[in-house]
């Protein structure tokens, strides 16, 4: 199947439709919530939560013996939340910094989860084969009920976000101030964190424990490059996330042996790289271009002011000078001279130059103009 076939089949074929819808919704909800995580400087929280969910999945299987994904996800939710609150606890009660706390909980829970997984695999009677899909994700196992669950939780998340938008924004920007205004910051905080945990748990089956945090961060990081407005950023992150889901699924479905989760994450990373380079205001490319063009302008101005100081010593500004005397001035090139001629600041007559009236005026006011620009 190639990409074209995929897009013609995606509306009619049940499996393709389910997987595509599922990954799109997942991308949208993780993108939205990821914006909050990124702005709170809790980018690694997602990583910690997803790894913390693994022992929950294993324990849920050991206790119930069921492979039903909803049961396992409840286990993931419980241990994900537990991990999150332990991280909070460690940060609040000890001197450890948040990255240390995140790393500790991540490895502790993940290690325990791996231990349980190997234990389950050694069980003779266990139909354990399905459990390792939670490590790297397996989008093909998505069924319609999974997608419904994602859609419902995403819907609730959007409604809550809409209702508490003002409070979320306030807390993200200035938590102490939020407290002084009389808002219960703990409640807002728990609300945000719970939804982040929920979104991560929802994605485990599709993308897996290891790569899940990229779904949270990549769309948000990309979106931040394009806007200075929080609501636009959240919407953009959702769109980037959804597109990553759709394109990732399309690419993986149209090739053999390309697992969906990693492809989705790679597509999301392409969004990030593209945004980092090409964003007009924050991107590397345009910043570099602006930098170079500013440098050129300055070089030009410096040359002009050097010429001005020479011209100044004569009563007549159009008194010609030889080009040679410019040679020991650093930053002077034939090109800058040509540019000055183009701008009609300088006239060249053979090997001689002189300033025009306009050039003299401009040079005399250069410094004042620079000050004005900065104000």
């Amino acid at each position, binding site marked *: 199947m190639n990409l074209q076939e995929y897009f013609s089949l995606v509306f009619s074929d049940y499996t393709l439709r389910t997987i595509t819808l599922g990954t799109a919704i997942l991308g949208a909800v993780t993108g939205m919530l990821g914006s909050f995580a990124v702005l709170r400087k809790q980018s690694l929280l997602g990583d910690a939560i997803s790894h913390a969910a693994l022992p929950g999945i294993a324990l849920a299987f050991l206790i119930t013996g069921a492979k039903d994904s909803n049961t396992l996800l409840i286990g993931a939710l419980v241990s994900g939340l537990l991990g999150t609150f332990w991280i909070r606890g460690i940060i609040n009660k000890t001197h450890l910094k948040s990255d240390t706390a995140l790393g500790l909980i991540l490895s502790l829970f993940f290690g325990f989860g791996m231990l349980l997984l190997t234990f389950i695999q050694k069980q003779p009677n266990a139909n354990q084969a399905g459990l390792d899909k939670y490590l790297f994700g397996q989008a093909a196992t998505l069924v319609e009920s999974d997608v419904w669950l994602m859609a419902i939780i995403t819907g609730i998340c959007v409604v809550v976000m809409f209702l508490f938008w003002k409070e979320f924004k306030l807390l993200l920007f200035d938590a102490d101030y939020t407290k*002084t205004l009389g808002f219960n910051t703990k409640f807002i905080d728990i609300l945000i964190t719970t939804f982040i945990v929920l979104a991560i748990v929802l994605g485990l089956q599709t993308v897996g424990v290891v790569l899940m945090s990229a779904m949270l961060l990549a769309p948000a990081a990309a979106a*931040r490059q394009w806007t200075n407005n929080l609501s636009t950023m959240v919407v953009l992150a959702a769109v980037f996330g959804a597109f990553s889901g759709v394109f990732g699924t399309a690419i993986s479905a149209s090739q053999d042996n390309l697992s969906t989760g990693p492809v989705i994450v790679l597509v999301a990373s392409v969004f990030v790289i593209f945004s980092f380079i090409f964003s007009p205001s924050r991107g590397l490319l345009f910043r570099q271009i602006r930098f170079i063009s500013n440098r050129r302008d300055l070089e030009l101005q410096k040359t002009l002011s050097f010429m001005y100081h020479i011209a100044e010593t004569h009563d007549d500004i159009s008194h010609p000078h030889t080009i040679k005397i410019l040679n020991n001035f650093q930053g002077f090139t034939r090109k800058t001279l040509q540019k000055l001629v183009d701008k009609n600041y300088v006239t060249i007559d053979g090997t001689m130059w002189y300033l025009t009236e306009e050039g003299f005026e401009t040079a005399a006011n250069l410094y004042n103009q620079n000050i004005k620009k900065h104000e």
Partner: protein
Amino acid sequence: MDTHTDEHALNKGNLAVKVDDLTVAYNYKPVLWDIDLEIPEGVLMAIVGPNGAGKSTLIKAILGILKPIAGSVSIYGKPYHKQRSLVAYVPQKGSVDWDFPTTALDVVMMGTYGSLGWIKRPGVNEKKAALEALEKVGMLAFKSRQISQLSGGQQQRIFLARALVQEASIYFMDEPFQGVDATTEIAIINILKELRKAGKTVVVVHHDLQTVPEYFDWVTFLNVKKIATGPVMDIYNDDNLTKTYGINYKVSVQK
């Protein structure tokens, strides 16, 4: 010295803030020890003390951002949590990430969120109030600027405007003069003096000992314990400065 001191603070005798036995500790060592403090209505008060003396902590504990080990705070005779709407806070500029995706106007609008309460969105009136506050601090022209594109002094003014929008009676400010240029400093102090003129109480964590007599009419010396509190003209002297900072201070105070 202004004559306002006497009119507003001393004769009225209304207590804006009363702090009793306040003790705060982060771990084992107390940061604030047994602070009793009375701030009369209508004063412009500086809190001075060396680094680590607990100046910011005192403000944060009064505002309920930090939980004290012991002690109580009352605002106009009632517990703080019942009087929140009377109090506005200007945090240290460095306490937030200025690369946050939002505009100057949006930050100032946050000052209206408290009176709006949960869920309700700011509307036309809130926007009008925010624009007025921006105008007061001379930042109206920058209302649509992304906040990271503002200079340090401009960011400080935005924070001030956000507090002004709250139309509080008592203002707590944590080092509003830190890292601002002379122009901004004058602009800010003029606003503070206007607030005092309007009968508001302003409490400022302040570092520049030279400007205390010029800017403020009331002062609290703090170094874990309260050293002294009262009118600048009475207690701002070498003796109290030495007690607070531990080294011999020679500051000439205009009397």
